[in-house]
């Protein structure tokens, strides 16, 4: 059924014409119609103007150093996997050795309390950080990513 302007094809072909996405036969039909239809020519001109404005727009984008989506490599995963157990074992042995050695060295109650307090504080801090890391690792969406 022809439109009032005499167009015998679907209006969507005007978009296809603007996008150069029509087969030759349809492109020919649209071109012939546009030569005599000011209304459809105006539609095509509008579509082109909007496409040009959209295409030539520029947006602010994040700086390169704001991205962190590179996946972790097998080697870094292995190193981190080994690092934490080793560091934990080292901290346990070091604190135990410091406590035992220091305890043997002195009979003074104040010195023993200082030693015990310091070692306990260090131990609590270390295990607090370790527990936080373990908890965060379970919910961290970026755990597979280089940070």
């Amino acid at each position, binding site marked *: 059924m022809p439109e009032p302007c005499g167009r015998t094809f679907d209006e969507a072909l005007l*978009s296809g014409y603007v996008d150069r*996405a029509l087969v030759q036969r349809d492109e020919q039909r649209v071109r012939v119609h546009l030569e005599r239809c000011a209304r459809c020519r105006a539609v095509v001109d509008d579509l082109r103007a*909007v496409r040009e404005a959209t295409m*030539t727009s520029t*947006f*602010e*984008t994040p*700086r390169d150093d704001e991205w962190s*989506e590179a996946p972790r490599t097998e080697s870094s995963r292995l190193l981190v996997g080994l690092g934490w157990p080793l560091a934990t074992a080292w901290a346990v042995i070091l604190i135990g050795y410091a406590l035992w050695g220091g305890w043997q060295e002195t009979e003074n109650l104040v010195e023993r309390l200082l030693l015990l307090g310091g070692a306990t504080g260090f131990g609590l801090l270390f295990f607090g950080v370790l527990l936080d890391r373990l908890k965060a690792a379970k919910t961290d969406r970026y755990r*597979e990513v280089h940070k």
Partner: protein
Amino acid sequence: MNTVMVESAAPAMVAGDAESDRQLVDQAKAGEPTACDALARRHRRAAYLLALQLLGNRDDAMDVTQDAMLRFFTTLKSFDATRRVQPWLFTIVRNQVRDLWRRRQRRPGDDIGESDALVGQLATPQPGPEADLQRRELKARVWRALAALPAEKREIIVLRDFHDLSYSDIAQVLGIPIGTVMSRLHGARRQLRARLEEGGRHA
């Protein structure tokens, strides 16, 4: 704001880029970290811009892009390297955006909400021919009208007119038959045109 300006809106992928993408994908599959880095540097800006255009919010767009890039790399092994990377990455971005909407109980038919948020992310052009006031105003009007469109209309226009995707790539990203791309795109453009006319009357 911690940002830099993009040089051009949507650098269209040419045949050479697709070929080197293929090589990079093969190298990344083989575990080459520099190839992953090169792929990320090549495609993340376009992915970010699509997320920004769908969400209208810089922080959400950044989160979605990082998640999408992560998914891109974790699923790389199953990716057919003969296909183009950008439509595949855009499909992931779109799915991530939809997941975010679902979590926030928004629908694809909703607009961005605050239409000036997206316009606020437009780069300020350098003085010169580009700084032409009328063109700048038209761009702001177009993006304000786009932000006011339902997301499903906005995405098809943005994919075609900003990112310059072919109809077959658009069909792949949206998961629709290629034969319906033109009519859906035209419907969206018609609605955008009506918004612009409406905006023009109220300006």
